């Protein structure tokens, strides 16, 4: 079997996907969801995944017409030069803020929980520096590193979950419907941003060994991550109950709380290590995809050389919010409410345009020939 250079297989793709989207359970997402849907928050990921299925399915269907082309070239091809450019630019700008705010959140977590006397700039700069180095190596190597640590990351995450169950009570989950079924549906539809990264993966299609791998990997990742997110939220609800509302980063509070037996009271470093590695890889991949978008947008072929510059800009944007409070409660909700609908609209529009232009019919004809 011949391996094409610079391409990633399904294992690497799945690892990147799980690390990028799956790590949401370890930041402030569970709290944000709990604030909206109280103790039924754990259902939101599953319902949202079901909602995400439709646009994602349409997107994958549309993308399958243009194999070996990425999302941006498809957008520009279907929507025309000018409209296409503006749509791509919009997606890029949203993602600039998304990566900046997310990386700032992670920096805040590191600072609050582990290095509270270190200046935030230093932590942030090291984080972005590492990511820039990794992103410059290219998607194949990001995938390889992601695959090297994915098993340990997932295993330790579940170990933390299991240890959390020692002190939790299942009663906190009831009443099972939380704020009510209708409210749950409403909140789920508002939280489409949970899985918005999946739309970004359509950008790295040319780097994935085969289109089948991409399709299969995306569905497996979507199902797995929604379950993992939901399990995580169940665990946090059972552990913290109503006080989850006021806990900014439940995963890190939880790992400080748990212990193995009585002799090891503080094992958070164990989880911190693997969490940090996952986070670094997450932002490396995110940074790479962002640079790819930028390169595609402005027709820059060797976009790898832009990565350090882009990383610096993200660092500066991420440093703007004064406090984590501004970030988690004011800026991120705005971003979340924009990302979801944008991707919904973009993918449905793409599909409709392709349908109206008759691309699907052409494909069939080509297939029959």
């Amino acid at each position, binding site marked *: *079997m*011949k*391996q094409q250079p610079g391409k*990633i*297989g399904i*294992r*690497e793709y799945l690892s990147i996907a799980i690390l990028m989207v799956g790590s949401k359970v370890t930041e402030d997402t569970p709290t944000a969801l709990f604030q909206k849907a109280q103790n039924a928050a754990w259902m939101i990921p599953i319902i949202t995944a079901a909602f995400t299925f439709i646009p994602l399915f349409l997107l994958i269907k549309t993308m399958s017409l243009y194999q070996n082309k990425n999302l941006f070239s498809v957008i520009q091809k279907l929507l025309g030069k000018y409209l296409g450019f503006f749509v791509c630019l919009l997606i890029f700008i949203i993602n600039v803020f998304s990566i900046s705010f997310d990386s700032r959140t992670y920096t805040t977590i*590191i600072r609050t929980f*582990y*290095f509270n006397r*270190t200046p935030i700039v230093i*932590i942030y700069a*090291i*984080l972005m*520096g*590492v990511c820039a*180095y*990794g992103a410059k*190596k290219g998607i*194949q*190597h*990001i*995938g*390889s*590193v992601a*695959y*090297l*640590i994915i098993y340990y990351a997932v295993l330790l995450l579940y170990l933390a979950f299991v240890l959390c169950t020692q002190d939790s009570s299942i009663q906190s989950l009831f009443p099972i419907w939380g704020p009510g079924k209708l409210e749950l549906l409403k909140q789920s539809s508002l939280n489409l941003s949970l899985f918005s990264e999946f739309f970004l993966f359509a950008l790295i299609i040319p780097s994935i060994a085969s289109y089948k791998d991409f399709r299969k990997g995306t569905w497996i990742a979507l199902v797995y991550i929604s379950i993992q997110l939901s399990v995580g939220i169940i665990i946090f609800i059972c552990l913290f109950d109503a006080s989850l509302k006021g806990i900014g980063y439940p995963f890190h509070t939880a790992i400080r709380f748990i212990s193995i037996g009585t*002799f*090891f*009271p*503080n*094992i*958070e*470093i164990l989880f*911190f*290590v693997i969490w*940090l*590695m996952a986070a*670094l*890889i997450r932002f*490396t991949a995110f940074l790479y995809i962002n640079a790819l978008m930028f390169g595609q947008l402005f027709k820059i072929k060797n976009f790898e050389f832009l990565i350090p510059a882009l990383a610096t800009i993200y660092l500066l944007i991420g440093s703007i919010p004064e406090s984590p409070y501004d970030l988690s409660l004011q800026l991120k909700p705005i971003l979340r409410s924009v990302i979801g609908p944008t991707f919904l609209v973009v993918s449905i529009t793409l599909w409709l345009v392709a349908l109206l232009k008759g691309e699907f019919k052409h494909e069939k004809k080509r297939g029959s020939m």
Partner: protein
Amino acid sequence: MKKKVLKPLFKKLNAEPQFSEESNTQDIELKKQDISSNYDQNLATFKSIFSIPKNIDIKVREFIIGSLDRRAFIIFISTMVDAQSIQEGIMEKLIGNDQPSGKIQNITSSPSERTATNIGEITEFITGGVTALFVDGDTQCYLFETTKITGRSIEKSDNEVIVKGAKEAFNEKVIDNIALIRKKIRNENLIVEAKVISKRSRNDVFLVYEKDLVNDELLQTIKDKIASIQTDRILDLSILEQYLEERPRSLFPSILYTERPDRATSFIEEGHIVLLMTNSPSCLVLPATFWSMFHSPEDHYLRTPYGNFIRFLRFQALFVAMFASPLYIAITNYHVGMIPPDLLMAIAGTRERVPFPSTVEILMMEIAFELIREAGLRVPTPIGPTIGIVGALILGQAAVQANIISPIVIIVIALSGLSSFIISDVSMNFAIRITRFLFIFVAAFMGIYGAIALFVPGLFYLVSLKSFGIPYFAPMTPHFISSKDLIIRHVPMKERFRPGYLNPKDTVKQRKG
């Protein structure tokens, strides 16, 4: 842009110095010529080439061939030939034979005989221990294989010790080394190809591979790489290794160096290519991956559970060797809360009277350990054991009593030092030990965060390393078909594939059922 400006500038600054050298065009021209049929001219030519009689071990013997009644002389290097075989196979036959026979081939009884005409070629053969016979009136020279080089016999492997399995190791005689491989692979497809790599000393390098397994593209890449070497001399295989590597300045090795023929054989049978060289008691295996350095032949000789047990130990040792000291620094300086209170009290108690910060303590002991280790290697054998006593007693016991080091540091250093011995590959061992120091520095700077911020780029670097186009962590990632012999190994019956990254001509070792 910047490079364009700077490159000529650097070139100007680093111009190659000019030397007044003596010209040797005359010698080179001479070597290109063929020998003449004139007996005296040939004799004079070779006497001048070999500086006879200044050069004491080069012998010329003149005589008359009895049966042909023609003058002849033989020339050989007495220190590199077997005098008895010249005596019995050549001289006695030529002088003593009375039957008239037209051909030299039919008179001599030496098992191998060939002819040559080029002066340069003949010179090369003579320096290799071949005896050359010149007959008056003949335009060609007869060469007899009489080489007998003195050297070590086949001994036990010193540096890669195993309990179960073959014990013999390569020695400095390449003939023996090839024989060691041949006797393990009795197959006509095993090819031993010779290539001359350097100009002045004319060192030979031997490519050993199986014709019906090895990927031709890979073989050609390696041959091209060897052909592209431009140098006067390469003394040893370990120097050739540095010439061949893609990144000779990298901390991590990308070619496997082993002295065990059984290991070399197992790689040849997977489709790798092995390089041998005269005067080197080892071989190079190319291409090599992280796994080939990490594994030991014993993993396969032992039964599966035991083999995997030592694999786990080694995997653990890899991490302990690299992270024990940095972790100690990180935890005691940044993450004190992680240590159970009782232990924390104990550590604090022993550190109470030590004046140095823990980073300095660790660094001092690490350096001391490396010193002991290096000293242990270099001391003459008779006083070897003393070093152990000095190291353990003085540095361990006394340093603690003198309040320079706290006892827990001794434990940490001893553990990481011992673990580093478990990584048997010399190059990998160095790589681990040097990265340990890097990790110590970053851990002192930023604790666990610093260590991870170095570890992750380290991983990125490692996965981007390539050995002749093969990724360092193949076949784990990127994935290739293989017998999944990575961190754990399966029973031999299940190991059915040759590694897919080599793209061998025959991937399946054994079919199912």
